């Protein structure tokens, strides 16, 4: 995103709308500026700031900068998933897709969320760490499509410095792999320059209990009291063996 300095009247209306604080308006300046390297191309300023002089404009997006918009602008439709946003249908349609089967846990590591944003060198660091466990990254996830070699979590070289509001690494592991995975995640969390939000999805047991709970608790980790529940109303229900 850009601000036309000839049109900008330095009203500052756009400044609070940037999620990564890339819009700057110095005291006494005649116009606001967007730090082009920090801007994640989410379009929030363009959509929301109601610029009185229409000084904010979308410059032409070319590779690899297109990656920023793909993962940061919630209204961009990803061709891999066919839905808006940086994720997939994941557990939301698990009742009809069976993506996460009994005995497995779906994992999502969302780099940059909340607030800080992420560059792909950090996304890659985490991807390579978990890839050592032999995980298969979800092919319909747009972040996976940016990998050069998903088997080892290697991303395309020219996107490593691209900044996004967030990028999701999505995969499933067998429940027995979970303790080892959590150890890997703990270790790599100390090696990155940003934050990530971690979540875990699982098919509920026939008695209503949640199979991952004892495993996570045994690892001494926290589970949130709130979250998402798929209530099984999709049809046709997936056949489970």
């Amino acid at each position, binding site marked *: 995103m850009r601000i036309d300095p000839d049109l900008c009247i330095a009203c500052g209306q756009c*400044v*609070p*709308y*940037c*999620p990564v604080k890339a819009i700057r308006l110095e005291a006494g300046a005649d116009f606001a500026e967007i730090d082009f390297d920090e801007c994640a191309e989410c379009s*929030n300023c363009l959509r929301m700031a109601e610029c009185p002089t229409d000084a904010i404009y979308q410059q032409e997006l070319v590779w690899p900068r297109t990656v920023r918009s793909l993962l940061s602008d*919630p*209204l961009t*439709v990803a061709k891999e*998933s066919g*839905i*808006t*946003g940086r*994720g997939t*249908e994941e*557990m*939301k*349609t*698990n*009742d*009809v*897709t069976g993506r*996460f089967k009994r005995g497995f846990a779906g994992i*999502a590591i*969302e780099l940059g969320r*909340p*607030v*800080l944003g992420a560059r792909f060198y950090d996304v890659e660091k985490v991807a390579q760490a978990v890839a050592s466990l032999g995980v298969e990254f979800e092919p319909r996830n747009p972040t996976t499509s940016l990998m050069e070699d998903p088997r080892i979590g290697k991303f395309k070289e020219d996107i490593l410095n691209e900044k996004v509001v*967030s990028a*999701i690494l*999505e995969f499933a592991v067998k429940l027995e792999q979970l303790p080892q995975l959590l150890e890997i*995640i703990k270790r790599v*969390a100390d090696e*990155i*320059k*940003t*934050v*990530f*939000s971690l*979540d*875990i*999805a*699982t098919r*509920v047991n026939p008695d*209503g209990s*949640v199979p*991952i709970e004892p495993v996570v608790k045994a690892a001494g980790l*926290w*589970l*949130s*009291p*709130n*979250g*998402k*529940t*798929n*209530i099984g*109303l*999709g049809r*046709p229900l997936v056949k489970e063996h």
Partner: protein
Amino acid sequence: MTHTLHRMGSVENLSEDYVVLMMPSKDINHAGSGPKLRRFLQMALDNGAIKIGDGRLGNQYHQGGVDKVLENVEDRAVVHAVFRDTESLARTLLAVKEADFGLSVVVSGLFGEVEKCCKRVGLEKHTVNISMGRWGRTENLPPQEILEINTMCGHGMVTVGLIEEVIAEVRNKRCTLEEGAERLFRPCVCGIFNPHRAAQLLEEMTAKEQ
């Protein structure tokens, strides 16, 4: 995974915050889903939803009103309804169950409360998705009370800067709590932000500061 997950807060302040999502699955049941999604949104409004939204086309401000949100729903939409109480939530879930749309439904909120609502209307959990919190350089994050508002938009569009600006406006009596909360809702294009809860959080914050 995912935009309605990772909402931060205490059990107490999360107890008036629920989102119901309905979506078709690509190539399984998406054909002809638009009218069903529209009926669901209308059903949610009739049963007490405080906001509705469409993750594909935007919330009521992007589309020019609640009527437009309803009118524009397409076959592959991901639609949402926000609730502030479990009575409205349970009524909606019962209506959705009876309508038998055949589309996937996900309820976000306190697991215990959601489970109680489901049991009341004869529904069972199929799959759950649980946040394990924030990792890495968490020392660089803003304070908890700011994050409790920010994380109600999973895409991060309700920014820290905007939240701080609204807090200042409320504190200086340039807007009411409700007006401030509604302003915070606007950038959340999916329409999943809960302005009722935001007003409560703003009230707590501004009272504490005074």
